[in-house]
Protein backbone atom coordinates (compact mmCIF):
# COMPACT_ATOMS: atom_id res chain seq x y z
CA UNK A 1 0.00 0.00 0.00
CA UNK A 2 2.86 2.38 0.89
CA UNK A 3 4.49 1.71 -2.47
CA UNK A 4 1.22 2.49 -4.25
CA UNK A 5 1.02 5.86 -2.50
CA UNK A 6 4.56 6.71 -3.56
CA UNK A 7 3.81 5.77 -7.17
CA UNK A 8 0.75 8.01 -7.24
CA UNK A 9 2.72 10.89 -5.79
CA UNK A 10 5.44 10.49 -8.44
CA UNK A 11 2.82 10.48 -11.21
CA UNK A 12 1.17 13.56 -9.72
CA UNK A 13 4.45 15.47 -9.50
CA UNK A 14 5.40 14.49 -13.06
CA UNK A 15 2.01 15.66 -14.32
CA UNK A 16 2.36 18.92 -12.36
CA UNK A 17 5.66 19.57 -14.14
CA UNK A 18 4.07 19.33 -17.60
CA UNK A 19 3.46 23.09 -18.12
CA UNK A 20 7.04 23.89 -17.04
CA UNK A 21 8.50 21.27 -19.36
CA UNK A 22 6.22 22.51 -22.14
CA UNK A 23 7.48 26.05 -21.62
CA UNK A 24 11.11 24.98 -21.47
CA UNK A 25 10.95 22.93 -24.65
CA UNK A 26 8.68 25.32 -26.52
CA UNK A 27 6.02 22.61 -26.98
CA UNK A 28 3.21 24.84 -25.73
CA UNK A 29 0.51 22.55 -27.13
CA UNK A 30 1.57 19.85 -24.65
CA UNK A 31 -0.19 21.51 -21.71
CA UNK A 32 -3.37 21.68 -23.73
CA UNK A 33 -3.08 18.06 -24.79
CA UNK A 34 -2.36 16.61 -21.34
CA UNK A 35 -5.07 18.79 -19.79
CA UNK A 36 -7.65 17.41 -22.18
CA UNK A 37 -6.42 13.88 -21.58
CA UNK A 38 -6.91 14.35 -17.82
CA UNK A 39 -10.44 15.64 -18.32
CA UNK A 40 -11.40 12.91 -20.81
CA UNK A 41 -9.81 10.42 -18.44
CA UNK A 42 -12.15 11.60 -15.68
CA UNK A 43 -15.15 11.15 -17.97
CA UNK A 44 -13.95 7.69 -18.96
CA UNK A 45 -13.24 6.80 -15.31
CA UNK A 46 -16.77 7.81 -14.34
CA UNK A 47 -18.12 5.54 -17.07
CA UNK A 48 -15.79 2.78 -15.95
CA UNK A 49 -17.33 2.83 -12.48
CA UNK A 50 -20.70 1.60 -13.79
CA UNK A 51 -19.30 -0.29 -16.78
CA UNK A 52 -16.26 -2.00 -15.34
CA UNK A 53 -17.16 -2.30 -11.67
CA UNK A 54 -20.95 -2.36 -12.02
CA UNK A 55 -21.36 -4.24 -15.32
CA UNK A 56 -23.85 -1.70 -16.71
CA UNK A 57 -23.05 -1.05 -20.37
CA UNK A 58 -24.24 2.53 -20.81
CA UNK A 59 -24.03 3.76 -24.38
CA UNK A 60 -25.19 7.26 -23.54
CA UNK A 61 -22.60 8.51 -21.12
CA UNK A 62 -21.63 11.50 -23.28
CA UNK A 63 -25.05 12.98 -22.48
CA UNK A 64 -24.05 13.61 -18.86
CA UNK A 65 -20.63 14.87 -19.92
CA UNK A 66 -22.37 17.30 -22.28
CA UNK A 67 -24.96 18.35 -19.70
CA UNK A 68 -22.17 19.28 -17.29
CA UNK A 69 -20.56 21.32 -20.04
CA UNK A 70 -23.81 23.03 -20.97
CA UNK A 71 -24.46 24.00 -17.34
CA UNK A 72 -21.24 26.01 -17.42
CA UNK A 73 -22.05 27.37 -20.88
CA UNK A 74 -25.62 28.37 -20.04
CA UNK A 75 -24.66 29.98 -16.71
CA UNK A 76 -21.96 31.96 -18.49
CA UNK A 77 -24.37 32.96 -21.26
CA UNK A 78 -26.78 34.44 -18.71
CA UNK A 79 -23.96 36.04 -16.71
CA UNK A 80 -22.71 37.66 -19.91
CA UNK A 81 -26.13 38.84 -20.99
CA UNK A 82 -27.19 39.87 -17.48
CA UNK A 83 -30.34 37.73 -17.73
CA UNK A 84 -31.60 34.76 -15.71
CA UNK A 85 -32.16 31.13 -16.69
CA UNK A 86 -35.94 30.63 -17.03
CA UNK A 87 -36.19 34.06 -15.42
CA UNK A 88 -35.25 32.56 -12.06
CA UNK A 89 -31.61 31.53 -11.81
CA UNK A 90 -29.06 34.28 -12.46
CA UNK A 91 -25.92 33.42 -14.45
CA UNK A 92 -22.49 33.18 -12.88
CA UNK A 93 -18.84 32.87 -13.86
CA UNK A 94 -17.56 31.60 -10.50
CA UNK A 95 -15.94 28.19 -10.81
CA UNK A 96 -16.88 27.34 -7.23
CA UNK A 97 -20.54 27.69 -8.21
CA UNK A 98 -20.52 26.34 -11.76
CA UNK A 99 -18.73 23.08 -11.00
CA UNK A 100 -21.09 21.99 -8.19
CA UNK A 101 -24.05 23.09 -10.31
CA UNK A 102 -22.79 20.94 -13.19
CA UNK A 103 -22.29 17.96 -10.87
CA UNK A 104 -25.77 18.28 -9.38
CA UNK A 105 -27.61 18.80 -12.67
CA UNK A 106 -25.87 15.97 -14.50
CA UNK A 107 -26.29 13.72 -11.45
CA UNK A 108 -30.02 14.43 -11.40
CA UNK A 109 -30.26 13.82 -15.15
CA UNK A 110 -28.46 10.51 -14.69
CA UNK A 111 -30.78 9.58 -11.81
CA UNK A 112 -33.78 10.24 -14.06
CA UNK A 113 -32.37 8.26 -17.01
CA UNK A 114 -31.18 5.49 -14.71
CA UNK A 115 -34.55 5.16 -12.99
CA UNK A 116 -36.15 4.43 -16.35
CA UNK A 117 -33.31 2.56 -18.07
CA UNK A 118 -32.55 0.18 -15.20
CA UNK A 119 -35.97 -1.41 -15.65
CA UNK A 120 -34.48 -3.15 -18.68
CA UNK A 121 -31.23 -5.03 -19.07
CA UNK A 122 -28.79 -6.41 -21.63
CA UNK A 123 -29.13 -5.11 -25.17
CA UNK A 124 -32.20 -3.11 -24.27
CA UNK A 125 -30.26 -1.26 -21.57
CA UNK A 126 -27.55 -0.33 -24.07
CA UNK A 127 -30.15 0.95 -26.50
CA UNK A 128 -32.33 2.84 -24.03
CA UNK A 129 -29.33 4.72 -22.62
CA UNK A 130 -28.41 5.58 -26.20
CA UNK A 131 -31.97 6.73 -26.83
CA UNK A 132 -31.97 9.11 -23.87
CA UNK A 133 -28.59 10.50 -24.89
CA UNK A 134 -29.96 11.14 -28.38
CA UNK A 135 -32.91 12.98 -26.89
CA UNK A 136 -30.61 15.27 -24.90
CA UNK A 137 -28.49 15.77 -28.01
CA UNK A 138 -31.44 16.84 -30.14
CA UNK A 139 -32.73 19.00 -27.30
CA UNK A 140 -29.58 21.14 -27.17
CA UNK A 141 -29.39 21.24 -30.96
CA UNK A 142 -32.91 22.68 -31.07
CA UNK A 143 -32.29 25.37 -28.43
CA UNK A 144 -31.57 28.42 -30.60
CA UNK A 145 -31.10 30.63 -27.51
CA UNK A 146 -28.03 28.61 -26.57
CA UNK A 147 -26.48 28.48 -30.00
CA UNK A 148 -28.30 25.45 -31.40
CA UNK A 149 -25.93 23.42 -33.57
CA UNK A 150 -23.14 25.97 -33.10
CA UNK A 151 -22.94 25.63 -29.32
CA UNK A 152 -22.01 28.30 -26.80
CA UNK A 153 -18.77 30.27 -26.83
CA UNK A 154 -17.55 30.92 -23.29
CA UNK A 155 -15.40 33.96 -23.90
CA UNK A 156 -13.68 33.90 -20.53
CA UNK A 157 -12.91 30.95 -18.33
CA UNK A 158 -14.76 30.90 -14.99
CA UNK A 159 -13.13 32.86 -12.15
CA UNK A 160 -11.56 31.28 -9.08
CA UNK A 161 -10.09 33.29 -6.13
CA UNK A 162 -8.84 36.04 -8.46
CA UNK A 163 -6.34 33.66 -10.12
CA UNK A 164 -5.30 34.49 -13.66
CA UNK A 165 -7.47 31.93 -15.41
CA UNK A 166 -6.35 33.06 -18.85
CA UNK A 167 -3.05 31.42 -18.12
CA UNK A 168 -3.27 27.88 -19.51
CA UNK A 169 -0.82 26.59 -16.91
CA UNK A 170 -2.93 27.86 -13.99
CA UNK A 171 -6.01 26.28 -15.51
CA UNK A 172 -4.08 23.08 -16.13
CA UNK A 173 -3.06 22.83 -12.47
CA UNK A 174 -6.66 23.33 -11.37
CA UNK A 175 -7.71 20.53 -13.73
CA UNK A 176 -4.93 18.33 -12.38
CA UNK A 177 -5.99 18.90 -8.76
CA UNK A 178 -9.64 18.12 -9.55
CA UNK A 179 -8.66 15.03 -11.57
CA UNK A 180 -6.42 13.78 -8.77
CA UNK A 181 -9.20 14.39 -6.26
CA UNK A 182 -11.64 12.48 -8.46
CA UNK A 183 -9.19 9.60 -8.78
CA UNK A 184 -8.82 9.35 -5.00
CA UNK A 185 -12.59 9.59 -4.60
CA UNK A 186 -13.09 6.70 -7.04
CA UNK A 187 -10.46 4.66 -5.25
CA UNK A 188 -12.26 5.09 -1.94
CA UNK A 189 -15.60 4.43 -3.59
CA UNK A 190 -14.48 1.18 -5.19
CA UNK A 191 -13.06 -0.10 -1.92
CA UNK A 192 -16.04 1.02 0.15
CA UNK A 193 -18.83 -1.34 1.13
CA UNK A 194 -20.98 0.30 -1.53
CA UNK A 195 -18.30 -0.40 -4.14
CA UNK A 196 -18.19 -4.02 -3.01
CA UNK A 197 -21.98 -4.23 -3.29
CA UNK A 198 -21.83 -2.89 -6.85
CA UNK A 199 -19.14 -5.40 -7.81
CA UNK A 200 -21.21 -8.15 -6.19
CA UNK A 201 -24.22 -7.17 -8.30
CA UNK A 202 -22.10 -7.41 -11.43
CA UNK A 203 -20.99 -10.89 -10.52
CA UNK A 204 -24.36 -12.21 -9.42
CA UNK A 205 -27.30 -9.90 -9.01
CA UNK A 206 -29.68 -12.60 -7.79
CA UNK A 207 -27.34 -13.62 -5.01
CA UNK A 208 -26.92 -10.03 -3.86
CA UNK A 209 -30.69 -9.63 -3.81
CA UNK A 210 -30.99 -12.81 -1.77
CA UNK A 211 -28.55 -11.32 0.72
CA UNK A 212 -31.02 -8.52 1.29
CA UNK A 213 -29.48 -5.83 -0.91
CA UNK A 214 -31.89 -3.58 -2.79
CA UNK A 215 -30.01 -4.09 -6.05
CA UNK A 216 -32.03 -1.68 -8.21
CA UNK A 217 -31.50 1.11 -5.72
CA UNK A 218 -27.77 0.42 -5.49
CA UNK A 219 -27.45 0.37 -9.28
CA UNK A 220 -29.43 3.58 -9.60
CA UNK A 221 -27.23 5.32 -7.04
CA UNK A 222 -24.11 4.15 -8.86
CA UNK A 223 -25.54 5.32 -12.18
CA UNK A 224 -26.33 8.79 -10.81
CA UNK A 225 -22.92 9.05 -9.15
CA UNK A 226 -21.24 8.11 -12.41
CA UNK A 227 -23.30 10.65 -14.38
CA UNK A 228 -22.33 13.36 -11.88
CA UNK A 229 -18.65 12.52 -12.42
CA UNK A 230 -19.07 12.81 -16.18
CA UNK A 231 -20.78 16.18 -15.64
CA UNK A 232 -17.81 17.39 -13.62
CA UNK A 233 -15.49 16.41 -16.47
CA UNK A 234 -17.72 18.16 -19.02
CA UNK A 235 -17.79 21.34 -16.93
CA UNK A 236 -13.99 21.34 -16.75
CA UNK A 237 -13.68 20.71 -20.48
CA UNK A 238 -15.90 23.68 -21.33
CA UNK A 239 -13.73 25.85 -19.08
CA UNK A 240 -10.59 24.44 -20.64
CA UNK A 241 -11.67 24.87 -24.28
CA UNK A 242 -14.01 27.83 -23.59
CA UNK A 243 -16.61 26.23 -25.81
CA UNK A 244 -19.67 24.02 -25.25
CA UNK A 245 -21.03 22.27 -28.33
CA UNK A 246 -23.63 19.61 -29.06
CA UNK A 247 -20.75 17.43 -30.28
CA UNK A 248 -20.00 16.75 -26.60
CA UNK A 249 -23.24 14.75 -26.49
CA UNK A 250 -22.97 13.07 -29.88
CA UNK A 251 -23.34 9.29 -29.70
CA UNK A 252 -19.89 8.79 -31.18
CA UNK A 253 -18.56 10.59 -28.07
CA UNK A 254 -20.21 7.93 -25.93
CA UNK A 255 -18.50 5.39 -28.15
CA UNK A 256 -15.15 7.12 -27.73
CA UNK A 257 -15.51 7.09 -23.93
CA UNK A 258 -16.19 3.35 -24.09
CA UNK A 259 -13.17 2.93 -26.32
CA UNK A 260 -10.99 4.73 -23.76
CA UNK A 261 -12.24 2.46 -20.98
CA UNK A 262 -11.63 -0.70 -22.98
CA UNK A 263 -8.31 0.45 -24.38
CA UNK A 264 -7.03 1.25 -20.90
CA UNK A 265 -8.56 -1.72 -19.14
CA UNK A 266 -12.09 -2.33 -17.85
CA UNK A 267 -12.53 -2.30 -14.10
CA UNK A 268 -9.15 -0.76 -13.26
CA UNK A 269 -8.69 2.64 -11.67
CA UNK A 270 -5.86 4.00 -13.80
CA UNK A 271 -7.00 2.27 -17.00
CA UNK A 272 -9.46 4.92 -18.22
CA UNK A 273 -6.83 7.65 -17.84
CA UNK A 274 -4.28 5.57 -19.74
CA UNK A 275 -6.90 4.77 -22.38
CA UNK A 276 -7.83 8.43 -22.74
CA UNK A 277 -4.16 9.32 -23.09
CA UNK A 278 -3.54 6.58 -25.63
CA UNK A 279 -6.57 7.36 -27.81
CA UNK A 280 -6.23 11.15 -27.67
CA UNK A 281 -2.48 11.10 -28.33
CA UNK A 282 -2.98 8.61 -31.15
CA UNK A 283 -5.68 10.78 -32.74
CA UNK A 284 -3.71 14.03 -32.50
CA UNK A 285 -0.36 12.53 -33.56
CA UNK A 286 -1.81 10.64 -36.50
CA UNK A 287 -3.95 13.69 -37.31
CA UNK A 288 -0.74 15.63 -37.83
CA UNK A 289 0.46 13.22 -40.52
CA UNK A 290 -2.74 12.29 -42.29
CA UNK A 291 -6.34 13.39 -42.40
CA UNK A 292 -7.25 9.71 -42.57
CA UNK A 293 -6.22 9.08 -38.95
CA UNK A 294 -9.47 7.22 -38.26
CA UNK A 295 -8.31 4.27 -40.37
CA UNK A 296 -5.25 3.31 -38.28
CA UNK A 297 -7.15 4.15 -35.07
CA UNK A 298 -9.94 1.79 -36.15
CA UNK A 299 -7.52 -1.00 -36.99
CA UNK A 300 -5.59 -0.62 -33.73
CA UNK A 301 -8.84 -0.60 -31.78
CA UNK A 302 -10.07 -3.72 -33.56
CA UNK A 303 -6.84 -5.54 -32.81
CA UNK A 304 -6.96 -4.46 -29.16
CA UNK A 305 -10.55 -5.70 -28.75
CA UNK A 306 -10.02 -8.97 -30.59
CA UNK A 307 -6.52 -9.86 -29.44
CA UNK A 308 -6.01 -8.54 -25.93
CA UNK A 309 -8.05 -9.14 -22.87
CA UNK A 310 -7.99 -6.42 -20.25
CA UNK A 311 -6.67 -3.63 -22.48
CA UNK A 312 -3.37 -1.83 -21.93
CA UNK A 313 -3.54 -2.28 -18.14
CA UNK A 314 -3.96 -6.02 -18.68
CA UNK A 315 -0.94 -5.99 -20.96
CA UNK A 316 1.14 -4.12 -18.36
CA UNK A 317 0.03 -6.51 -15.63
CA UNK A 318 0.88 -9.55 -17.73
CA UNK A 319 4.34 -8.19 -18.51
CA UNK A 320 4.95 -7.46 -14.83
CA UNK A 321 3.79 -10.94 -13.80
CA UNK A 322 5.83 -12.56 -16.54
CA UNK A 323 8.99 -10.84 -15.37
CA UNK A 324 8.59 -12.05 -11.81
Amino acid at each position, binding site marked *: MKRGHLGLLVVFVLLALVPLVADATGQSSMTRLVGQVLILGMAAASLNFILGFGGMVSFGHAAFYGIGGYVVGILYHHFDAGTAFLGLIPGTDQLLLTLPAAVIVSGLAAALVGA*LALRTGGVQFIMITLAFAQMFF*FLVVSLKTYGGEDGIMVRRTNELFGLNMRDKATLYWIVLVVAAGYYLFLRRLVNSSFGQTIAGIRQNERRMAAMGVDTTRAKLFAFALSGAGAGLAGALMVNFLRFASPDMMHWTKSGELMVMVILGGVGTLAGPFIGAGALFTLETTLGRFTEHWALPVGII*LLVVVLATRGGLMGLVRRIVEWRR
Partner: protein
Amino acid sequence: MILLVEQFLNGLQYGVTLFLLAAGLTLIFGIMGVINLAHGALYMVGAFAAAWTTMQTGNFWIGLPVGLVTAALVGLAMELAVIRRLYQRDHLDQVLATFALILIFNQSVTLIFGRQPLFSQPPALLSGAVEVLPGLPYPAYRLFVIAVGLAVAVGLYLLINKTRIGMLVRAGATNRQMVRALGVDIGRLYSAVFALGALLAGLAGIMASPILAVQVGMGEEIILATFVVVVVGGVGSVKGAFVAALVLGMIDTMLRAFLPGLLQGVMPGPEAQALGVGISSMGIYLMMAIVLLIRPRGLFAAGG
Protein backbone atom coordinates in the same frame (compact mmCIF):
# COMPACT_ATOMS: atom_id res chain seq x y z
CA MET B 1 -55.49 16.13 -47.55
CA ILE B 2 -53.23 15.86 -50.58
CA LEU B 3 -50.29 16.90 -48.40
CA LEU B 4 -51.22 14.20 -45.90
CA VAL B 5 -51.29 11.48 -48.58
CA GLU B 6 -47.96 12.65 -49.93
CA GLN B 7 -46.38 12.54 -46.47
CA PHE B 8 -48.01 9.15 -45.89
CA LEU B 9 -46.22 7.82 -48.98
CA ASN B 10 -42.95 9.43 -47.86
CA GLY B 11 -43.37 7.78 -44.47
CA LEU B 12 -44.06 4.44 -46.13
CA GLN B 13 -40.95 4.77 -48.25
CA TYR B 14 -38.77 5.62 -45.23
CA GLY B 15 -40.46 2.80 -43.32
CA VAL B 16 -39.64 0.11 -45.89
CA THR B 17 -36.03 1.37 -46.09
CA LEU B 18 -35.82 0.98 -42.31
CA PHE B 19 -37.38 -2.46 -42.63
CA LEU B 20 -34.78 -3.65 -45.16
CA LEU B 21 -32.05 -2.68 -42.71
CA ALA B 22 -33.84 -3.83 -39.58
CA ALA B 23 -34.81 -7.26 -40.94
CA GLY B 24 -31.16 -8.26 -41.34
CA LEU B 25 -30.08 -6.61 -38.12
CA THR B 26 -32.79 -8.23 -36.02
CA LEU B 27 -31.90 -11.69 -37.35
CA ILE B 28 -28.19 -11.15 -36.69
CA PHE B 29 -29.06 -9.78 -33.25
CA GLY B 30 -31.55 -12.52 -32.45
CA ILE B 31 -29.70 -15.54 -33.82
CA MET B 32 -26.04 -14.74 -33.25
CA GLY B 33 -26.54 -12.38 -30.33
CA VAL B 34 -24.21 -9.84 -31.93
CA ILE B 35 -24.76 -6.10 -31.80
CA ASN B 36 -23.50 -4.99 -35.19
CA LEU B 37 -23.09 -1.21 -35.23
CA ALA B 38 -21.38 -1.59 -38.59
CA HIS B 39 -24.60 -2.74 -40.27
CA GLY B 40 -24.96 0.83 -41.54
CA ALA B 41 -21.57 0.47 -43.25
CA LEU B 42 -23.07 -2.26 -45.46
CA TYR B 43 -25.89 0.11 -46.38
CA MET B 44 -23.26 2.67 -47.34
CA VAL B 45 -21.22 0.12 -49.31
CA GLY B 46 -24.31 -0.93 -51.29
CA ALA B 47 -25.20 2.69 -52.01
CA PHE B 48 -21.67 3.62 -53.12
CA ALA B 49 -21.20 0.55 -55.30
CA ALA B 50 -24.56 1.04 -57.01
CA ALA B 51 -24.27 4.82 -57.40
CA TRP B 52 -20.74 4.63 -58.78
CA THR B 53 -21.60 1.86 -61.25
CA THR B 54 -24.75 3.68 -62.29
CA MET B 55 -22.79 6.86 -62.93
CA GLN B 56 -20.10 5.02 -64.90
CA THR B 57 -22.46 2.96 -67.05
CA GLY B 58 -25.42 5.32 -67.03
CA ASN B 59 -27.62 2.33 -66.27
CA PHE B 60 -29.30 1.79 -62.90
CA TRP B 61 -30.09 -1.83 -63.78
CA ILE B 62 -26.37 -2.62 -63.89
CA GLY B 63 -25.74 -0.69 -60.67
CA LEU B 64 -28.41 -2.67 -58.80
CA PRO B 65 -26.86 -6.17 -59.06
CA VAL B 66 -23.34 -4.78 -58.63
CA GLY B 67 -24.42 -3.08 -55.41
CA LEU B 68 -26.15 -6.24 -54.15
CA VAL B 69 -23.20 -8.52 -54.84
CA THR B 70 -20.70 -6.04 -53.36
CA ALA B 71 -22.71 -5.61 -50.16
CA ALA B 72 -23.17 -9.37 -49.72
CA LEU B 73 -19.49 -10.13 -50.35
CA VAL B 74 -18.31 -7.35 -48.04
CA GLY B 75 -20.75 -8.64 -45.41
CA LEU B 76 -19.46 -12.18 -45.79
CA ALA B 77 -15.88 -10.98 -45.46
CA MET B 78 -16.83 -8.97 -42.38
CA GLU B 79 -18.41 -12.02 -40.80
CA LEU B 80 -15.44 -14.27 -41.52
CA ALA B 81 -12.80 -11.76 -40.43
CA VAL B 82 -14.34 -10.08 -37.40
CA ILE B 83 -17.91 -10.88 -36.42
CA ARG B 84 -17.20 -14.61 -36.12
CA ARG B 85 -14.80 -13.89 -33.28
CA LEU B 86 -17.42 -11.89 -31.41
CA TYR B 87 -20.09 -14.55 -30.92
CA GLN B 88 -18.65 -15.68 -27.61
CA ARG B 89 -17.78 -12.18 -26.40
CA ASP B 90 -19.92 -9.87 -24.29
CA HIS B 91 -21.89 -6.95 -25.68
CA LEU B 92 -19.20 -4.47 -24.73
CA ASP B 93 -16.57 -6.08 -26.97
CA GLN B 94 -19.11 -6.33 -29.78
CA VAL B 95 -20.04 -2.67 -29.57
CA LEU B 96 -16.38 -1.65 -29.62
CA ALA B 97 -15.21 -3.96 -32.39
CA THR B 98 -18.06 -2.92 -34.67
CA PHE B 99 -17.50 0.73 -33.70
CA ALA B 100 -13.93 0.22 -34.93
CA LEU B 101 -15.34 -1.28 -38.14
CA ILE B 102 -17.36 1.90 -38.71
CA LEU B 103 -14.16 3.97 -38.48
CA ILE B 104 -12.38 1.62 -40.87
CA PHE B 105 -15.21 1.51 -43.41
CA ASN B 106 -15.83 5.25 -43.38
CA GLN B 107 -12.18 6.07 -43.90
CA SER B 108 -11.72 3.42 -46.60
CA VAL B 109 -14.70 4.75 -48.52
CA THR B 110 -13.37 8.31 -48.13
CA LEU B 111 -10.00 7.17 -49.47
CA ILE B 112 -11.61 5.51 -52.50
CA PHE B 113 -14.36 7.98 -53.39
CA GLY B 114 -13.25 11.23 -51.71
CA ARG B 115 -15.40 13.52 -49.63
CA GLN B 116 -17.68 14.71 -52.42
CA PRO B 117 -21.09 13.02 -52.32
CA LEU B 118 -22.19 10.99 -55.35
CA PHE B 119 -25.47 11.80 -57.02
CA SER B 120 -26.96 9.12 -59.23
CA GLN B 121 -30.13 9.20 -61.29
CA PRO B 122 -33.11 6.86 -61.05
CA PRO B 123 -33.60 4.65 -64.11
CA ALA B 124 -35.24 6.35 -67.09
CA LEU B 125 -38.20 3.99 -66.87
CA LEU B 126 -39.01 5.29 -63.36
CA SER B 127 -37.88 8.89 -63.66
CA GLY B 128 -41.36 10.31 -64.20
CA ALA B 129 -44.20 10.89 -61.79
CA VAL B 130 -47.41 8.96 -61.30
CA GLU B 131 -50.61 10.75 -60.43
CA VAL B 132 -51.63 8.73 -57.36
CA LEU B 133 -54.57 11.03 -56.61
CA PRO B 134 -56.08 13.73 -58.80
CA GLY B 135 -53.72 16.68 -58.35
CA LEU B 136 -51.00 14.67 -56.59
CA PRO B 137 -48.14 13.55 -58.83
CA TYR B 138 -45.72 11.29 -56.94
CA PRO B 139 -42.27 10.21 -58.18
CA ALA B 140 -42.51 6.77 -59.77
CA TYR B 141 -39.14 5.76 -58.36
CA ARG B 142 -40.32 6.25 -54.78
CA LEU B 143 -43.35 4.09 -55.48
CA PHE B 144 -40.95 1.49 -56.87
CA VAL B 145 -38.96 1.61 -53.60
CA ILE B 146 -42.15 1.02 -51.61
CA ALA B 147 -43.11 -1.88 -53.89
CA VAL B 148 -39.66 -3.48 -53.60
CA GLY B 149 -39.73 -3.12 -49.81
CA LEU B 150 -43.14 -4.74 -49.52
CA ALA B 151 -42.13 -7.52 -51.93
CA VAL B 152 -39.05 -8.25 -49.82
CA ALA B 153 -41.25 -8.35 -46.73
CA VAL B 154 -43.47 -10.99 -48.37
CA GLY B 155 -40.41 -12.90 -49.61
CA LEU B 156 -38.86 -12.91 -46.13
CA TYR B 157 -42.15 -14.05 -44.62
CA LEU B 158 -42.24 -17.03 -47.01
CA LEU B 159 -38.54 -17.78 -46.50
CA ILE B 160 -38.79 -17.75 -42.74
CA ASN B 161 -42.13 -19.49 -42.32
CA LYS B 162 -42.18 -21.97 -45.20
CA THR B 163 -38.64 -23.22 -45.76
CA ARG B 164 -36.21 -25.42 -43.88
CA ILE B 165 -33.66 -22.62 -43.57
CA GLY B 166 -36.39 -20.40 -42.22
CA MET B 167 -37.24 -23.03 -39.64
CA LEU B 168 -33.61 -23.08 -38.46
CA VAL B 169 -33.59 -19.30 -38.36
CA ARG B 170 -36.72 -19.21 -36.23
CA ALA B 171 -35.37 -21.92 -33.98
CA GLY B 172 -32.09 -20.05 -33.67
CA ALA B 173 -33.81 -16.86 -32.64
CA THR B 174 -35.78 -18.71 -29.97
CA ASN B 175 -33.06 -20.91 -28.51
CA ARG B 176 -29.57 -20.79 -29.93
CA GLN B 177 -28.03 -23.48 -27.73
CA MET B 178 -30.77 -25.98 -28.51
CA VAL B 179 -30.28 -25.62 -32.27
CA ARG B 180 -26.59 -26.23 -31.85
CA ALA B 181 -27.21 -29.20 -29.60
CA LEU B 182 -29.44 -30.75 -32.27
CA GLY B 183 -26.49 -30.97 -34.65
CA VAL B 184 -27.12 -28.07 -37.01
CA ASP B 185 -23.97 -26.68 -38.64
CA ILE B 186 -24.28 -23.41 -36.82
CA GLY B 187 -21.25 -21.80 -38.46
CA ARG B 188 -22.75 -22.06 -41.94
CA LEU B 189 -26.15 -20.92 -40.73
CA TYR B 190 -24.54 -17.86 -39.12
CA SER B 191 -22.61 -16.96 -42.27
CA ALA B 192 -25.71 -17.38 -44.42
CA VAL B 193 -27.85 -15.22 -42.15
CA PHE B 194 -25.16 -12.54 -41.97
CA ALA B 195 -24.77 -12.48 -45.76
CA LEU B 196 -28.55 -12.24 -46.14
CA GLY B 197 -28.59 -9.32 -43.71
CA ALA B 198 -25.78 -7.64 -45.63
CA LEU B 199 -27.66 -8.18 -48.90
CA LEU B 200 -30.79 -6.53 -47.49
CA ALA B 201 -28.79 -3.63 -46.03
CA GLY B 202 -27.09 -3.20 -49.41
CA LEU B 203 -30.49 -3.26 -51.12
CA ALA B 204 -31.70 -0.51 -48.80
CA GLY B 205 -28.63 1.55 -49.70
CA ILE B 206 -29.10 0.93 -53.43
CA MET B 207 -32.75 1.91 -53.27
CA ALA B 208 -31.87 5.11 -51.39
CA SER B 209 -28.93 6.03 -53.65
CA PRO B 210 -30.88 7.93 -56.37
CA ILE B 211 -32.91 9.76 -53.69
CA LEU B 212 -30.20 10.81 -51.23
CA ALA B 213 -26.72 12.22 -51.57
CA VAL B 214 -24.50 9.14 -51.33
CA GLN B 215 -21.82 10.11 -48.81
CA VAL B 216 -19.74 8.87 -45.92
CA GLY B 217 -21.75 9.02 -42.70
CA MET B 218 -25.04 8.05 -44.36
CA GLY B 219 -24.78 4.71 -42.59
CA GLU B 220 -24.65 6.18 -39.08
CA GLU B 221 -27.53 8.49 -39.81
CA ILE B 222 -29.86 5.60 -40.43
CA ILE B 223 -28.34 2.88 -38.24
CA LEU B 224 -29.50 4.44 -34.96
CA ALA B 225 -33.07 4.62 -36.26
CA THR B 226 -32.68 0.99 -37.36
CA PHE B 227 -31.61 -0.05 -33.88
CA VAL B 228 -34.65 1.71 -32.48
CA VAL B 229 -36.81 -0.30 -34.90
CA VAL B 230 -35.15 -3.57 -33.91
CA VAL B 231 -35.48 -2.95 -30.19
CA VAL B 232 -39.05 -1.67 -30.40
CA GLY B 233 -40.09 -4.59 -32.63
CA GLY B 234 -38.42 -7.10 -30.34
CA VAL B 235 -34.98 -8.57 -30.96
CA GLY B 236 -35.09 -11.49 -33.40
CA SER B 237 -38.60 -10.86 -34.70
CA VAL B 238 -38.88 -9.99 -38.39
CA LYS B 239 -42.59 -9.38 -37.97
CA GLY B 240 -41.84 -6.94 -35.15
CA ALA B 241 -39.23 -5.22 -37.31
CA PHE B 242 -41.79 -4.81 -40.10
CA VAL B 243 -44.47 -3.31 -37.86
CA ALA B 244 -42.04 -1.10 -35.96
CA ALA B 245 -40.30 0.10 -39.15
CA LEU B 246 -43.54 1.22 -40.77
CA VAL B 247 -44.92 2.83 -37.61
CA LEU B 248 -41.68 4.62 -36.70
CA GLY B 249 -41.00 5.65 -40.30
CA MET B 250 -44.47 7.13 -40.46
CA ILE B 251 -44.21 8.93 -37.09
CA ASP B 252 -40.80 10.36 -37.94
CA THR B 253 -41.93 11.63 -41.34
CA MET B 254 -45.18 13.10 -40.04
CA LEU B 255 -43.44 14.91 -37.16
CA ARG B 256 -40.83 16.39 -39.47
CA ALA B 257 -43.47 17.48 -41.96
CA PHE B 258 -46.03 19.01 -39.66
CA LEU B 259 -44.52 19.83 -36.24
CA PRO B 260 -42.49 22.94 -37.23
CA GLY B 261 -45.61 24.37 -38.89
CA LEU B 262 -47.74 23.67 -35.83
CA LEU B 263 -45.17 25.27 -33.51
CA GLN B 264 -45.05 28.36 -35.69
CA GLY B 265 -48.58 29.02 -34.55
CA VAL B 266 -47.39 29.59 -30.97
CA MET B 267 -43.85 30.99 -31.29
CA PRO B 268 -41.61 32.99 -33.65
CA GLY B 269 -40.56 31.39 -36.95
CA PRO B 270 -36.87 30.42 -36.75
CA GLU B 271 -37.13 29.19 -33.16
CA ALA B 272 -40.23 27.15 -33.98
CA GLN B 273 -38.36 25.67 -36.94
CA ALA B 274 -35.35 24.66 -34.81
CA LEU B 275 -37.45 23.33 -31.95
CA GLY B 276 -39.76 21.48 -34.34
CA VAL B 277 -36.86 19.75 -36.08
CA GLY B 278 -35.29 18.91 -32.70
CA ILE B 279 -38.44 17.40 -31.24
CA SER B 280 -39.11 15.51 -34.48
CA SER B 281 -35.65 13.96 -34.25
CA MET B 282 -36.37 12.95 -30.66
CA GLY B 283 -39.70 11.36 -31.61
CA ILE B 284 -38.55 7.83 -32.38
CA TYR B 285 -36.26 7.70 -29.34
CA LEU B 286 -39.13 8.81 -27.13
CA MET B 287 -41.26 6.06 -28.70
CA MET B 288 -38.58 3.49 -27.92
CA ALA B 289 -38.25 4.64 -24.32
CA ILE B 290 -42.02 4.39 -23.84
CA VAL B 291 -42.28 0.96 -25.48
CA LEU B 292 -39.38 -0.42 -23.45
CA LEU B 293 -40.85 0.88 -20.21
CA ILE B 294 -44.12 -0.89 -20.92
CA ARG B 295 -42.68 -3.97 -22.63
CA PRO B 296 -38.99 -4.26 -21.68
CA ARG B 297 -38.32 -6.85 -24.41
CA GLY B 298 -40.06 -5.02 -27.25
CA LEU B 299 -43.38 -5.57 -28.99
CA PHE B 300 -42.89 -8.99 -30.58
CA ALA B 301 -39.92 -10.46 -28.72
CA ALA B 302 -38.85 -13.92 -29.86
CA GLY B 303 -37.80 -16.53 -27.35
CA GLY B 304 -38.60 -16.88 -23.69
